[in-house]
């Protein structure tokens, strides 16, 4: 095969295109921060999840420790069942508190974990018992108006 300048240009084009794809995947997308480490699954029940969505982040002390994997309605308790996968490096005590929080005023919702003092740790497949639901703005306004009316 003889080499031509056309081959060189096509090579530059293909390599450049691939580099752009890799750059998109690594620098723009979340492939580099993807959870490649081992995870474990836990779940929790919330009476109201507000605007929580699958893939929402789970943070403890502001550090990302996992992601929400699945949200469904448990028809026995009529509460939202939220499955989460947490990084194996981070273990939490059994009496950990799970809150649904909002980042900023208009930001997206995430789950905040506040560890308790129990010696035993939550294992794979277990449940967080202490939860606090999302703050729904309409409820707050409703309560406020109700209180005002009582005065």
């Amino acid at each position, binding site marked *: 095969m003889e080499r031509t300048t*056309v*081959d060189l*240009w*096509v090579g*530059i*084009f*293909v390599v*450049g*295109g*691939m580099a*752009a*794809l890799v*750059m*998109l*995947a690594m*620098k*723009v*997308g*979340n*492939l*580099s*921060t*993807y959870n490649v480490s081992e995870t474990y699954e836990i779940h929790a029940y919330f009476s109201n999840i507000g605007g929580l969505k699958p*893939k929402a*982040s789970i943070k403890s002390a502001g550090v990302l420790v996992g992601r929400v994997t699945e949200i469904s309605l448990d028809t026995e308790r009529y509460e939202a069942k939220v499955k989460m996968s947490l990084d194996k490096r981070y273990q939490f005590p059994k009496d950990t508190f799970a809150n649904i929080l909002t980042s*900023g005023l*208009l930001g997206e919702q995430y789950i905040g974990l506040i560890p308790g003092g129990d010696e035993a740790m939550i294992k794979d497949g277990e449940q967080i018992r202490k939860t606090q639901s999302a703050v729904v703005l309409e409820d707050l306004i409703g309560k406020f108006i109700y209180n005002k009316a009582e005065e």
Partner: protein
Amino acid sequence: MPVKNAIQGIGRRIINAVWRIGLATRFFFLAVVYSGTSFRRFHLIIKELFSSGVMSLIIILVAGMFVGMVLGLQGYETLKRYGSESALGSLVALSLVRELGPVLAALLFASRAGSAMTAEIGLMKATEQISAMEMMAVNPIARIVAPRFWAGVISMPLLAALFSAMGIFGGYFVGVVQIGVDEGSFWSQMQSAVDFREDILNGVLKSFVFGTAVTVIALFEGYDAPPTAEGVSGATTRTVVTSSLAILMLDFILTAMMFGGK
């Protein structure tokens, strides 16, 4: 009977259009069937990659840069009102990776490379080169059409990725370097918002579909062009119009399939 004539005219046009769609479908399958030969003679594809991919590089890179810069500027102006300038990175990246990258790159590709393909093949037909090939028992679909088809299909995703990457740099340049949005939040918000499979791979898939559509339309119009100067010019115009419309329509369908209802 002007009414009857008008109705007949409409009917003739519709029948003609459906006929051509059928022909184009057969042409597409022929190109796929005969592509085995062109993969064995890969230098043909390389040559076409040069003329359709490499030659479109400049316009794609420059256009991507400017689109990203405009996105950065406009996005900043809008986000500033809500005090969330830090979301500029995710705005620029998501709109480029999901929509603007594949669509605009395909539109530019259709007018830069698609029109050239149509004109080239149409002129080959007008100067009876294609008939000459048939006389020599060379299959023109395998020799001319299939390499161009694969070159278009291969180069389109690469061009779209380059477009998006350049656009993000353009947005970075305007947003971070010139206006002074915080660099850390620009990149980190972008990374947390853009999902590799959901956004980037879907964008690549989109550009594959667009590349296939544009090259098939361009090649078919060229192959089907009346062998006259007028015919070739008409076919070139039709290539740009039809493939642009096809891109936008397919984009709606693909977007609805990929991101709709979530």
